[in-house]
């Protein structure tokens, strides 16, 4: 696991609201680098968006699984897969903070 060793959920809760998006984007990008097996130097490429970086369904469910564990998220209600409609780490972080974590 890359980055800060303090659990990301603790860091989010302890941070001012304005800092939370950046913390979560950083965490999501770290997970993506692992899933894609990319090294840190390619982090900037992640800003191109999920389709452009080649995120397929297997990678997407792996990311979903890791986020559920790290953020202690319950499975989405009624099988809602709205996370998969997000197009970038920034969009996904914004969605999770506002819709799943109530931390906005």
């Amino acid at each position, binding site marked *: 696991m890359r980055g800060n060793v303090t659990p990301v959920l603790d860091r989010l809760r302890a941070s001012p609201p304005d800092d939370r998006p950046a913390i979560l984007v950083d965490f999501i990008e770290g997970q993506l680098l692992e899933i894609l097996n990319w090294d840190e130097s390619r982090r900037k490429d992640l800003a191109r968006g*999920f*389709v*452009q*970086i*080649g*995120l*397929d*369904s*297997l990678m*997407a*469910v*792996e990311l*979903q*699984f890791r986020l*559920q564990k790290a953020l202690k998220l319950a*499975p*989405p209600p*009624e*099988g*809602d*897969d*709205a996370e*998969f*409609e997000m197009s970038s780490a920034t969009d996904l972080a914004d969605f999770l903070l506002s819709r799943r974590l109530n931390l906005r």
Partner: protein
Amino acid sequence: MGLGPRPMVSGLAIRDYAGDCEDVAALGQKVWTATYGNTMWFPLWDAAFLRWQIGGGALAPALYDGDRLVGTFFSLPHKLRIGSQTLPVGLASWCTVDPAHRAGRSALRLIGALRERHAAHGLALSLGVISGDRASVAHQFWSRYAQSFPQNLRFLFCFGLWVKVLDPARVAAAGVSAFERLGVRVAGPLLRGIPSRPTTGVRPYAPGDLPRCADLLAASTARCNWALQWPVARLAAQLNSAVSQTFVLESGGSVQAFVNIHRLSFQGRSPVRAAMIDLWATDARGAGSARLIGHLCQALRRDGVELVLAMRAHGMPAPALLANGFVPQPAHHHVVALFPRDDVALIEPKTWHLIMR
């Protein structure tokens, strides 16, 4: 999320499949060979098989790049009796996406589209089969999907196969591991043998046998707590088609048993011509069942079939299969259920009668 259209990668669209199934077969063979070639066995469904299955009103969301088919996930509506309750269900299979079009999370979109069609058609669930090979992309994907969306997908139980090798040299050559190749070669003479028995009373199925076969099957599946239901029209299409074949055992002017297979190819290191026993039902005892299975194997071998498989389902005639050299394989495949909504309560499948697609 509603049931409305989802944003897609530019140029890609999901719509109901329309075609002659040649493109579905070509896509599956191309993608599965690229994904699993030389590493695990997988079925090579041809267009005739797919027309037989999909032509009967399948739910068939397909991913197109313009007019070109690049992804599929189909489900065949059936009725499944679970305990005393009969549910509309589907048999889901053929979840395939061209690797060049996977970046848009296409498989997830196809799953979403199939779940939407389930809901629209009132299906309670779709059953599917997933390889137990943990290194396979399918197993990795579906197990992670089930962990992330436990309301959408459940792993229900594992099952094994009965395997009869009719042509050890061809099957050994196709083996995906050295152990498998060596094992089939060494045991080949034993595996290929079919005890010589009189085939008195065994003959090909004729349409006039349909009512009696339906009765036998209903009686056979009544003992299971999970059993697909076979209305007469569906059973007729199953028992006799371009890719399926049935033999009956007749005694005293009455059909006492029948066995039904469909033909397909399996791909290991090379293709193997195979037959899958789908349905078996009998009220005969002892040697009659072994005679019928033996006759089936002889007929299939004469037709160039190299391998015969059957699900180790409740009601399959284990003594008759063993007597004809079938070998039981360990439970390696998973039956899973894909749900359109999360309020479906299921009793445990203790005794089951299903077909594998």
